[in-house]
């Protein structure tokens, strides 16, 4: 079983797909998650076993077919996908691997996807990742990794939300950070995002802090790039109250379903809210 789809039950098995993808798979049934498939740990194993760095022919065929099928589902002529690694012990309750593995955005075509997946696999051996694993008492010689290939939402607005306030630990506050364009600028911290605090119990916007957003990440034929935000919208609020409340509501529902406070990534495209990631908040205690 080398490639599984998010909506398949087998895609919820952490040992095959990693915590991140298993979480997304659980969510895909109930929430608006962009369609995607996962190259399981078995796929990684087959590649690693070959040892040459080349892909087994069968796996190439399977990947090509899956990419074509997804393009058909999305009715996209040239489907843009995001390729993200999903470690087996990532996104567990104990340690968040956020940012430790690779992400490739705006990949177009099966060939580009194969290239990106290969780089995700290879990254498990990077010194940065190994060091992180050592510090967190994780095994360094038997790394297992899965890779998610998911339709990329060309976000108009993107950001993160916490179903509990990670700063003052208030469990009745949803904290939202959003900025223009793809979420990368928010996640990587290169832009000071807008901040909204929404009360979880009655969904009222308690605070709005509108930042001067100078940079944004946008999709580009070569992947993504960070560009200047045009002057007219730098100081504009990314969310109106209705959107802030919609995101807060999503975080609240997810927390109830998961049973733990969540840290989500989400994006608006053509006024529709997409759920991109959902992880436990690891810093509340």
């Amino acid at each position, binding site marked *: 079983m080398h490639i599984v789809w998010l909506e398949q039950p087998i895609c919820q098995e952490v040992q095959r797909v990693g915590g991140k993808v298993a979480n997304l798979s659980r969510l895909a049934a109930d929430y608006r998650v962009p369609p995607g498939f996962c190259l399981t740990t078995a796929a990684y194993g087959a590649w690693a076993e070959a040892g040459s760095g080349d892909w087994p022919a069968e796996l190439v065929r399977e990947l090509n077919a899956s990419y074509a099928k997804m393009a058909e589902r999305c009715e996209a002529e040239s489907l843009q996908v995001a390729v993200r690694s999903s470690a087996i012990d990532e996104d567990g309750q104990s340690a968040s691997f956020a940012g430790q593995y690779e992400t490739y955005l*705006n990949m177009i075509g099966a060939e580009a996807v194969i290239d990106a997946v290969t780089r995700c696999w290879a990254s498990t051996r990077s010194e940065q990742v190994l060091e992180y694993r050592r510090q967190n008492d994780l095994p360094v010689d038997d790394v297992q990794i899965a890779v998610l290939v998911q339709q990329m939402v*060309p*976000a*108009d*607005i993107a950001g993160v939300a916490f179903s509990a306030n990670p700063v003052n630990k208030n469990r009745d506050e949803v904290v939202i950070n959003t900025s*223009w*364009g793809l979420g990368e600028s928010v996640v990587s911290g290169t832009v000071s995002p807008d901040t909204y605090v929404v009360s979880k119990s009655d969904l009222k916007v308690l605070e709005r802090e509108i930042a*001067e957003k100078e940079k*944004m990440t*946008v*999709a*580009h034929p070569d992947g*993504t790039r960070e*560009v*200047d935000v*045009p*002057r*007219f*919208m730098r*100081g*504009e609020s990314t969310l109106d109250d209705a959107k802030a409340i919609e995101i807060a509501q999503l975080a609240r529902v997810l927390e109830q379903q998961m049973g733990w406070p969540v840290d989500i990534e989400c994006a608006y495209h*053509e006024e529709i809210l997409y759920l991109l990631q959902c992880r436990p908040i690891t810093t509340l205690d």
Partner: protein
Amino acid sequence: MADPHAGRLEPRVIPVTPEFPVRWDVPEDEHMPWQFDPMHFPNPLPRWENELWCEMANKGMSPAFAGYEMPIRARGKIFNDYNYAAMFPVVPPEEMEAQGKKAEAALGAAMASMQERWEGEWLPEIKEHLAFWDACDLAALSPEQMLAQYDATLERTMRLWHLHFEIVVPAYAAMGLFDDLYKDLFEDQGAFSAIQLLGGFDNKTLETDRALWDLSRKATDKEVRQIVTTKASSQVVAALAGSAAGQALLSALNAYLADYGQRGPSLSVYEPSLIEDPSPMIKNLQDYIGQEGGDPRERLAAQAEERETGLAKAREQLAGYPEKVRGQFEFLLQAAQVGVVLSEDHGFWIDFQSTHRVRMVMVEVGRRLAEAGVVAEASDAFHLGMAEVRDALAALPEGDLLWLVAERKADIDRHRGVQPPMQLGTDYGPPPEDPLSRAFGKFFGTPPEPSNEEGNLNGHAGSPGKIQGTAKVVGALAEAEKLQQGDILVTGTTSPAWTPLFATAGAIVTDTGGILSHCAVVAREYRIPAVVGTGAATKRISDGQVLEVDGDNGTVRIVG
């Protein structure tokens, strides 16, 4: 947020110099930021015309600004026969930003509906005013009717100038904002990348020039060509009239003037329009007859193609950008494309069609005053003020204003030699850094960086291309005779009546204007290099010098 007032200096009263004496008849006027506008009014003006342009600021600009919730108003004032205007705030400094936001919203709404309003509201009203004047047989009016016609003319003129600014403010704001946005979005672009996306649309200025070009193609008869190309421009009409073969071209020429001849050499009520003295257009006709290529339709098509290519490229680059960016790009693009056409068409309909008719009323008034001996000749009426003309009309057949006209004429002659300062009254420092001020700057031009090299002049990029040619400094359209094919036209400013010359000139260099000025817009349409707003080209350059004009970088080099 950048503080719009940051870097502004304390208000400074500008010292009055003996060369340009100013007596503050109204004390508060000394605290106003009076600005000289050499692009529109470079010369001392006869009193009536000068008062008209003052009233244009008071009753045209100000209500348009108010209509768009802008925090400023305008006033005009005459100093030593030169026309000055002041733009001054009408809300306290702490309310400027909030009022500015309201204005942005009002202008945004106006930009969205310019085309609709032009077709449904503005142009029909303009035409209604023109029809009012056309319906009147001025010579047949009784004295009372003449007085009423005079009053109605002033009232309708001011209404038209109100419309004028209601049109141009959002039109130029849209062009300026589009240029700003483009520069925010795309790095390392030349001065014209944004402007190029607004080019290649037909407008009334191009239509006027095209009709003249078509007229030149009608001069196929050998004898007719001989007459047009060898006679002095002032004698061509008479010579055509005296030739059997010339009748067809003469009637085509008259038809052209009836449609397009309502414009003078500059924006002026005082100067005769082409209908009265067609010599400047005959010069254009003579040049056109000698030209083989250069069909204006081909130029327009090439420009439209460049626009569409550039636009496809820009849209492709923006495909992955947030909707808010793409939406604003498309919104401003469309508004600016409408704006660039209206920036020419409003001039055809208001600046020229209506001003010509106002002039015709004043010519008739002058004729009556001259007939009664109140003034010596009809054109002398322009040396009286608006109220003085009304009083003189009402007092007919009595009256003697010969002395006053003589005094006024002597004043103008005396003032013609002085250099009017750019600013009078109080200097409040550079304008605030906001989108609208930037748009104004792109029209009027901002002072260029002085060139540090001897023999070089800096201005603003007006139209792309680099070319060498012989300088011809043309102060007035009547001097345009000396311009030969490929020469570089060096002038203070150009009005639409000059633009047929752009087919003859190799490049244009002006003292005034910015990248959105009329001259720059039309030079791009003619696809010749232009450097605008040099401040001093007409003073630093003399006839016969060889110049290298670099329209992309806005520089002029005196080669020899």
